[in-house]
């Protein structure tokens, strides 16, 4: 059984078919990239996979459970327990330090644990910046805090929305390297990106166009080794 399965998904706004009969399976531990031009339906698909929206038609099976008909309260619980989110604009709480931002995810999930949060920051190489506010961190560092926050609750899936969109090449490499580490640890990764070089390091890439799955490519050379270099 696939970890995530989208079956005949439609999302219709008036006359616009943002998603039009999309079918997709993501296996546990897989690293999938989603690509497509603006308006292709990437964000709509992210919202649905991330339990922030529901499809007009179709089924979304997460761990075999159809989440497409769940109410907002249950979707919040699923998001909290099973999904780690990484954003293009980082979205750290400006008045909380790096470690507190990581603990925020623990706070909503279970119990904040400073030691565990520090370990997560250590995994992204930011243990020494734990007490810094987001304004005192570079863009790359902020994104790494965002990654630490996403992985702190051991989610089933990490969903990254243009994670390198606001980063320079050096920081882009650091973040992609982190994805390699997460993948090697068995984390399922779904990365939406415009950047073909970021997409290509994944195991599989799906292309969306006009709300439909246009094509799919498998990275035959994927070894799981860190070799991303621009």
């Amino acid at each position, binding site marked *: 059984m696939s970890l995530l399965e989208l079956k005949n998904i439609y999302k219709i706004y008036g006359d616009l078919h943002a998603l039009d009969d999309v079918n997709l399976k993501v296996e546990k531990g897989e690293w999938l990239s989603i690509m497509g031009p603006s308006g292709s339906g990437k*964000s709509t698909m992210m919202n649905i996979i991330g339990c922030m929206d529901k499809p007009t038609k179709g089924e979304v099976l997460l761990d075999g459970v159809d989440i497409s008909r769940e109410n907002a309260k249950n979707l919040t619980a699923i998001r909290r327990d099973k999904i780690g989110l990484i954003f293009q604009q980082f*979205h750290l709480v400006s008045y909380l330090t790096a470690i507190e931002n990581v603990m925020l995810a623990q706070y909503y999930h279970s119990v904040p644990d400073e030691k565990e949060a520090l370990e997560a920051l250590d995994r992204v190489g930011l243990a020494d910046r734990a007490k810094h506010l987001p304004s005192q961190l570079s863009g790359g560092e902020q994104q790494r805090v965002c990654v630490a926050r996403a992985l702190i609750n051991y989610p089933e899936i990490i969903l990254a929305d243009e994670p390198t*969109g606001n980063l320079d090449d050096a920081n882009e490499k650091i973040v992609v390297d982190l994805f390699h580490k997460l993948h090697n640890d068995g984390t399922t990764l779904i990365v939406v990106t415009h950047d073909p070089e970021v997409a290509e390091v994944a195991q599989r890439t799906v292309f969306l166009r006009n709300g439909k799955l246009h094509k799919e490519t498998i990275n035959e050379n994927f070894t799981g080794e860190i070799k991303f270099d621009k």
Partner: protein
Amino acid sequence: MNKRKMYFHMITASLIRRRSRMLVALLSIAIGAAILSGLVTIYYDVPRQMGAQFRNYGANMIFTPSDGSFTSADIEQGKSYIDSADIVGVTPYRYESVRIRELPVMAAGTDMQQAKLTSPYWSVEGEFPSAPGQMLLGANLAEQFRLGAGDTETVSFTPESDGGEVVADNMLDLTITGVLETGGPEEDYVYLWLSDLESLTGQSGKVDLAELSISANSEKLNQYADTISGSVPAVSARLVKRVTESETTVLTKLQALVLLVTVVVLALTMICVATTMTAVVAERRKEIGLRKAIGASNAGIIKEFMGEGMLLGAVGGIIGSILGFIFAQQVSINVFSSSISFIPLLVPITILVSVAVTGISCLLPIRSATQIDPALVLKGE
């Protein structure tokens, strides 16, 4: 760090680390709380302050004899029914016709020190008589006899004769310490110590009238008057209506005004806080979206924003209590020329009201916060 500690840390960090924005809300709450606590302090202190002001208009109760005349002992007995803390002054008066330079004048024998208390509006050119042997001359008499402060004049009294015998006048040389100006009938009187008048007339103990200045509201004054009239047979206690009624009217109007201003200030504070919190929620849409995206429930968002609002309310209430007392004190000093008494109970009440007002003001903005879509944190929104 447990969950509760993290919660308090988050709401305090939000207020402290975002102080420029929250300062506006805090300021409006503190000012609202200050005016509220200040006005309530004044509201409770106004009767005392106004009472003191009205005592300047003279006595508000008069003892008259039920039948002919009464004695000083009757006055003392009547006085015993009044709470001593409420008594500003009690002045007995005995009126007799005396003569100065063979011309008849009305003399009032009294306790000069008490007269000063019950008739604070008296304007004396010179000094108030401080001891027997001295007198106060009404301005009209002073003009008529061309006398002034420092002069000594003989006051004579013709005792009643039995059966038409010629009786020698009693005479007393008294020093005029001051000339009395009131613009009223008092200017036609000569005021001397009761003991001097008694020695002049040869009769002691008799009193025609007593003026009392009592610091109490009209209800309490009525109670005192009824009790005294019922308990002391020789005394008929009456209120000086023009003083007590105007005092009640002014107090009622003033308290209504203070109440109205308090309600208006509370409403304005609520509007101000609600507006600021709406701006805060709008400014933090992305943060709220993020919190919801990473798993915050609507109840969690409400708890956090309500916590921030209430903490602001509490801090604003504490600052407001202090500022309110200073405000009330300044108003009291400038308007009533006396300091105000501190009401400790008002501090927790002000804090509670501030917290409640802030909480109510936050309801609508927080409701809008719960409606924020978590998807807005994703790109393109």
